[in-house]
């Protein structure tokens, strides 16, 4: 596959603070890359360097064969970028703003109105097109940011927390937009929501304290999460100990945590050895034990716990 975005030993220092520390990665056409990490991990700083807003302290960024430092305008013209919080000129109407972006993105005058119409329809902005941006809701503002990023149909799309602060319907809409555009482009999004990685990303990297901690397909990454594939069973508190002793005998069950859930029920959380799937065995054993249980489910893993571990194990020097 054709590599379109390449980061090579990229670093960014702010004074003595190292925001991005030697990140190298390549993204090919058709990939949707998710940047995962706690706040302040260096996700936005990395994206800002790729988008040409910040100059790297060392290392290079190459987009479609152009170096971001040597030829920033060529790089910027190939990127659609939505900054965190999608700041846009609030004193303008949506139409005037998009028209300004289309103009400066070099869309010819006779094609401009048509292109704006297409994007507005795609992003569902018809209702607010002649309203001033400062009176729009957060969801609409985010969509305006999205619209300006795709108006010139760029080969590379960089979206910094595209669904942050949106309601579930809007999130769904943004995700389906990303999916729809994915085959044609390189899309890089940042997020700290696990379901988003599962929903849209073909690949994910974890960034913590400026370093690249993990890089792989979304599934491979999920399997590294703490508590991935843990199986939870809810049963009556009275029979919990009984069940626990039975489940402990299953091969592949590493450890069982018991949590009191109130109202006379307890939850048994079976942690697998090596992240293997133990749902079948646990449910089989539970059923054959004859002890009644009301719920059984498999955990996908917990990104928050992972983020906390990153922040703690890396020395806790966090940048807000």
């Amino acid at each position, binding site marked *: 596959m054709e590599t379109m975005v390449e980061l090579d030993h990229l670093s960014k220092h702010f004074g003595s603070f190292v925001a991005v520390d030697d990140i190298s990665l390549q993204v090919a056409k058709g990939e949707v890359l998710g940047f995962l990490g706690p706040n302040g991990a260096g996700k936005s700083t990395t994206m800002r360097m790729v988008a040409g807003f910040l100059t790297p302290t060392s290392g290079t960024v190459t987009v479609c064969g152009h170096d971001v430092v040597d030829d920033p305008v060529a790089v910027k013209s190939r990127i659609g970028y939505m*900054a965190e*919080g999608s700041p846009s000129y609030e004193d303008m109407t949506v139409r005037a703003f998009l028209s300004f972006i289309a103009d400066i993105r070099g869309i010819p005058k006779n094609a401009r109105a048509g292109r704006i119409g297409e994007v507005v329809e795609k992003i569902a902005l018809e209702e607010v097109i002649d309203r001033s941006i400062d009176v729009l809701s957060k969801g609409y503002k985010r969509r305006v940011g999205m619209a300006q990023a795709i108006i010139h149909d760029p080969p590379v799309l960089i979206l910094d927390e595209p669904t942050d602060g949106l309601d579930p319907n809007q999130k769904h809409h943004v995700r389906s937009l990303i999916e729809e555009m994915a085959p044609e482009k390189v899309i890089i999004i940042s997020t700290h929501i696990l379901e988003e990685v599962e929903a849209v990303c073909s690949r994910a990297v974890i960034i913590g304290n400026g370093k690249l901690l993990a890089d792989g397909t979304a599934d491979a990454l999920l399997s590294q999460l703490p508590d991935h594939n843990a199986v939870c069973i809810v049963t009556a508190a009275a029979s919990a100990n009984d069940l626990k002793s039975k489940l402990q005998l299953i091969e592949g069950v590493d450890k069982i945590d018991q949590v009191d859930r109130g109202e006379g029920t307890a939850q048994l959380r079976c942690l697998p050895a090596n992240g293997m799937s133990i749902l079948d065995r646990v449910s089989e054993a539970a059923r054959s034990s004859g002890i009644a249980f009301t719920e059984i489910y498999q955990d996908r893993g917990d990104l928050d716990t992972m983020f906390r571990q990153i922040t703690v194990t890396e020395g806790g020097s966090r940048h807000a």
Partner: protein
Amino acid sequence: MRNMWIIAKRELYGYFATPMAFIFIAIFVALNGAFTFYIGRFFDRGQATLEAFFSFHPWLYLLLVPAVAMRLWAEERKSGTIEQLLTLPITTADAVVGKHLAAWIFCGSALALTFPIWITVSYLGDPDNGVIAVSYFGSFLMAGAFLSIGSCMSALTRNQIVAFIAASAVCFIFTMSGLDLVLNFFRGWAPGFLIDAIAATSFLVRFESITRGVIELRDLIFFLSMMVFWLFASTVAVDSKKAA
């Protein structure tokens, strides 16, 4: 050039999106009238010139031009739109010059709206229209130079008030540097060439020489190179401060 013009258009849109632009122009025109007719004693002079009118421009600009320039970059940084602006396929210089151009056009239109004063003097007497045209041009040039200082100060901070005060202070230094008040301070000890150099950076001295009716090449070069210098400094400031 094309990009600069697109940026300038957007910026002008920003100026006129609120009533502030019209209020500013009204104040500018009213103050010009007040200074010319009352403080400048236009009628008592009994001369068909606009000398009184133009002589107040450096002092008016000292306060009004930084007010126009203060939002240029400080606001972009405060609202975060600078990230939007500088990830568009333009250079920082495009953005700096485009914004300056918009502010300059805005000041130019305010200046043009003082035309009733010219009509008045033409009605009352027979003024030298060549001198008036040259003086208008000189005033416009000076506004551009003040604006470029304001642009640089605005790029250094995200606080518009700070930008305003800093720009006024720097503009004040460049205005005052030709006056004896300042030069006397140096005369006691500084060599002659230094005093000449300081006097030569004065907007006031340059502008007064233009309002006599002649644009000398060196005055033109002075104002243009002032703009080039301060806009270059703005570009450096924007590039180095954008992330802060």
